[in-house]
């Protein structure tokens, strides 16, 4: 399968202020998305956040109440799904049970009236791509979940769509297989230069697979950005909380030292890089793995260890402070020195603390 041509900067999927409601429920609220060619874009959020509806709007299985959908620059808002240039991998795979693996993969080519010889060559190629060449004559019910997933992927890829839509495609696999498929999917996508939209509620999956992640809640995109930015610089409490754990501290900006703000919390002052003005009440988020514990007497927020939970590679420390409960994750190697009841000081790199935009302290 040849690369789909990755002329940089071209937008393969664009949604402009798309809105969709089901009865009184606003499922998707004024969503704007631009997905450049050759990248994976993830829609991440809890169930009911509108991520699947957004995907179905791109596919044309749902019609938007307002806004426009573009695929490869063509306005497709009014087109039925079968006239749009996309393909889709469903959570349930939806492999046709009455067709063999090869026939399933050939289906899209048959609908496109691809000549027989070319069709069988493309099917073989697609099945080899997902390492299932040997199972071409089997039926879906004779395959394992992981194999079915690959068939669904081959069936979607063989028609060389402008955009590949993936609706929680790894959700039905067990954890080991899922992680393996994530990496495989990513390398396949990069090798073929595919543009893909990926719906998931699994934050790790979104971080692993995506070039950009959109975190959705209640039909609204709360934040869009590369995985690292979304994780390290969350804008809202929801984003900070949904992608891994976070510590939240409320306080008031007491002073500024250049780019650094000193925020007075109930447990003492903390320093962080933020442009909030003096006197502003802010909510600060700090990732648990950024928190360093020191012996009592060192600089930092005073706290007391309430609980220690061993989690293999990391150990979780649950702390009480005057500013509320805190969580600290330490590498197992550094975790042995502490015991419940120890008085500690918590500190972190000021650059790793973030002021949340919706933090009404």
């Amino acid at each position, binding site marked *: 399968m040849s690369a789909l041509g990755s002329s940089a900067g071209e937008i393969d999927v664009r949604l402009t202020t798309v809105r969709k409601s089901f009865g009184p429920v606003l499922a998707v609220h004024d969503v704007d998305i631009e997905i450049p060619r050759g990248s994976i874009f993830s829609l991440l959020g809890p169930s009911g956040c509108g991520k699947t509806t957004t995907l179905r709007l791109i*596919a044309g*299985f749902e019609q938007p109440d307002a806004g426009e959908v573009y695929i490869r620059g063509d306005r497709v808002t009014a087109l*039925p*799904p*079968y006239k749009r240039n*996309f*393909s*889709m991998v*469903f959570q*349930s*795979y*939806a*492999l*046709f*049970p*009455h067709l063999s693996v090869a026939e399933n993969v050939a*289906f*899209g080519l*048959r*609908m*496109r009236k691809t000549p027989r010889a070319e069709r069988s060559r493309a099917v073989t190629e697609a099945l080899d791509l997902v390492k299932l060449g040997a199972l071409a004559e089997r*039926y*879906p*019910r004779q395959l394992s*979940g992981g194999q*079915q997933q690959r068939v669904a992927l081959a*069936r*979607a890829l063989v*028609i060389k769509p402008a955009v590949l*839509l993936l609706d929680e495609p790894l959700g*039905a696999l067990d954890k080991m297989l899922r992680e393996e498929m994530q990496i495989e999917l990513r390398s396949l996508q990069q090798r073929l230069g595919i543009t893909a939209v990926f719906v998931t509620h699994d934050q790790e999956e979104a971080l692993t697979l995506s070039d950009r992640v959109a975190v959705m809640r209640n039909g609204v995109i709360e934040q869009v950005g590369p995985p690292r930015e979304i994780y390290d610089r969350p804008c809202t409490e929801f984003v900070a909380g949904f992608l891994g754990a976070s510590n939240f501290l409320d306080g008031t900006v007491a002073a500024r030292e250049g780019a650094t703000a000193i925020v007075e919390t109930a447990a003492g002052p903390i320093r962080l890089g933020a442009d909030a003005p003096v006197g502003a009440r802010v909510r600060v988020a700090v990732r648990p793995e950024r928190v360093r514990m020191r012996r009592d007497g060192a600089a930092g927020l005073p706290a007391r260890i309430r609980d220690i939970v061993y989690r293999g590679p990391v150990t979780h420390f649950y702390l009480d402070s005057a500013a509320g409960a805190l969580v600290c994750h330490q590498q197992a190697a550094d975790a042995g020195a502490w015991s419940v009841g120890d008085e500690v000081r918590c500190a972190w790199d000021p650059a790793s603390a973030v002021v949340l935009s919706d933090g009404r302290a």
Partner: protein
Amino acid sequence: MKTRWALVLAAPPLAIALAFFVVPVAYLFWVSLHQPSQSELYGAALTLGNYAGILGDSFYLEITRRTLGVAAAILALCLLVGYPVAYFVALLPARRRMLVTLLLLFPLMVSNVVRAYGWIALLARRGVINAGLEGLGVIAAPLELLYTTPAVVVGLMTILLPYMVISIANTLAALDRRYEEAAQALGAGPLRTFLHVTLPLSMPGVASGTLLVLLLTLSAYVTITLLGGPRSKLLVSMIYDGVTAFQWPHAAALSFILLALALVLTGVILGVLRPARVQGTGR
């Protein structure tokens, strides 16, 4: 422990099936292998003459051909009329589908005898249709409608149609819509989605509907007798005639020929429609 309980639970129905089905059928087969007798149920000598007599008789060949023709016509009509109805019933939301299913079952609550007399009132020489057409001056003499094979076909078809509709509608309603969406995502329009995906996936319903209609057609009696009259007899009518003429072994042999026919046709239908290959989901 588990198997013992299963045996205990299965024993009563198995005993009933054995006593009231297997044993009588075996006995009937035994009867069919004997010469007729004037005074007894069957004569003393064993013979295959009953079967040979039927299979060698062109009259029974004609009756069998007519029976198959009627069954084929009823099946074709039930599929042609029933599938579209089932398709739209399946699209209804669950509550309304329930209601429509109930309405479809409603005619089954009326006795077949009553329904046959309803058809007689319509089709007879002085029935509603002939009287109406004559009154309008469309025809001069009454049409020959009742006591014909088409009358049997129409009469039975209307009775059996709900079985077909409900069988197909249940399968279609349970069908995961993702299959159709997957087909559309691969570029299939509505017609091709139906032909390549929906229709093949509904085969379990088509097969069970077809089998129900076929077997009920082969065993129907009242409707055939009342609407077919003496000229449009089917195999079942001949069995009845045999019994009333006290030709027990002959009637028994005819019963087994009908049973064999039903089994062969069932095999053919299952072989052609292959409902099992779409059972089990795509997951």
